[in-house]
């Protein structure tokens, strides 16, 4: 019997994975399905004019009710507001591992939108990134109507 003052720390593998399936709601479903046609839907508040992407049915600024009639198509072009670059990722065992290539992630404001999208950035070196630079969407070769249809954003051609 071990003494009371001694604290034994034991590592136990726990075979627990909780799986989830978050339903997206009707406007978000429209947004995701439209990606198959390389279209990006936003929604414009009829009261305060704020444009959200992805779309939602309640304005978070003035709380007006929004609906399908307020949907508005946005171009795949925008401005990089801010960015971060990842050099490591979680290894799934409580630690980090180095990435083979750095992964930049950008906060992007699409043309005509007021809200911000967070998306991976590609075809660009981390040191070339600059706040305010123009970026554009790069689609997956055969978009299927899934969130992964947007591969990443890259610096826009002049």
């Amino acid at each position, binding site marked *: 019997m071990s003494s009371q003052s001694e604290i034994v720390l034991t590592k136990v593998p726990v075979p627990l*994975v909780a*799986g*989830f*399936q978050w*339903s997206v*709601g009707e406007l978000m479903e429209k947004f995701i399905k439209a990606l198959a046609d390389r279209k990006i839907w936003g929604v414009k508040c009829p009261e305060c004019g704020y444009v959200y992407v992805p779309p939602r049915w309640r304005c978070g600024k003035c*709380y007006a009710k929004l609906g399908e009639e307020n949907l508005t198509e946005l171009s795949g072009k925008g401005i990089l507001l801010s960015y971060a670059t990842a050099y490591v990722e979680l290894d799934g065992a409580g630690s980090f591992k180095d990435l083979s290539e750095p992964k930049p992630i950008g906060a992007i404001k699409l043309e005509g939108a007021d809200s911000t999208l967070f998306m991976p950035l590609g075809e660009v070196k981390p040191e070339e990134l600059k706040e305010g630079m123009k970026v554009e969407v790069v689609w997956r070769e055969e978009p299927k109507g899934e969130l992964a249809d947007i591969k990443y954003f890259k610096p826009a051609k002049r």
Partner: protein
Amino acid sequence: MRNVAIIGCGQTKHSARRRDVNLAEMVGDAVWNALEDAQVTPQEVDAFTVGNMQGFGGVAQPEQWLGDWIGAAGKPVLRVATGGSTGGCVAQAAFYAVASGLYDIAVATAWEKHSDSKEPGATTGLSHVALGNTINMINCGLSFKHLLSMTLVGAAAGVACYQAMYYMYRSGSRVEHLDMVAAKDRRNAAKNKYAHLQWPGCTPEDIAKTEWVAYPFRYGHICPASDGASAMVLACEDIARKRCKKPVWIKGLAAYSDEENQIMSEGAGGIGILDASQQIGATMSAIKAYRMAGIRDPQKEIDVAEIYQPFPNQELIFAERLGLFDEGTAWRALEKGETDINGRMPCDPSGGVNATNAIGSSALQRILECALQIMGKAEEHQVPKEVHNAVATGWGGATNYIAVTVLGDSPY
């Protein structure tokens, strides 16, 4: 301390699968229904209290997603999570916010979206409650067979099984009485348009035909896992009297933990000295809440009760703990129809948790349903008598935590 009243109530339809909406939309629906009911604009609300069962639904910090969906952008938001009693504590937190004088109008909202979890057992949520103890026992060489016998039905149902057996043994009631409670609750739910398991004309015989889960429980006895949300608007006395024709006053409240009956308490220790049906936390909460509310004889002064009863034995146990019936006699009152919607002491006219269990929301719904009964707005499931005082419970934590709220048509 200031007087606090409920001036508006809102719910969503509850069902097994609310896949038409996402979490934020669902909770938003309940809050907007409550704001409309109270005739209050989101700009007028000073603070929000929110909550669901921790970990369920796979959203770690739901209040951060919900903020600007429920009108809380730029306002104080307090999240409360106490397991099954969450909704009761969310409402009590909103009471404190207003009673203290910090805020004049507060919104309390609680929810659960079970269908967002792939496993029926909501693995992550239950891990919060029992994983540490179980791992501790596995470390000390727990056998799989023992684990199996411990988890015959799993989670709260497992605890409630023992609770039901203890109660039946002590009171002399039988499984038939569980059938009667469940049938009554499903019939009541059929009159409540927001409820989940609605079975018009359900009889105890219908329930007795369902399969066993683990003796003494059949499938027909056990609550469903629901998706849904509920919300209430609370206000201080000045505003409540100006804005609402019939404000419902929160007259007394308390939430006690009954540490002694926890299963697998510290060090995976015993089941405790008290048996699972004693629920001293409920007795202590009721005494405190009644004293605060000035209620001396609950059997005479309480007109309707909304009891947190995912398992039918709990309606009987908690009704006794709340002093609505003498010790060990709730089942006799049930036999006489006293707990029916048109009975002397209606219990869960809404169908209760037995018919609708969106866990985080369930205890808030009990308070909300009491408020509807006092306002006279319960529509088809309105009890056919004058309601002056009502009592609501929540049961949660690690099955040991009870929140009791007493409501009335006057603050005194």
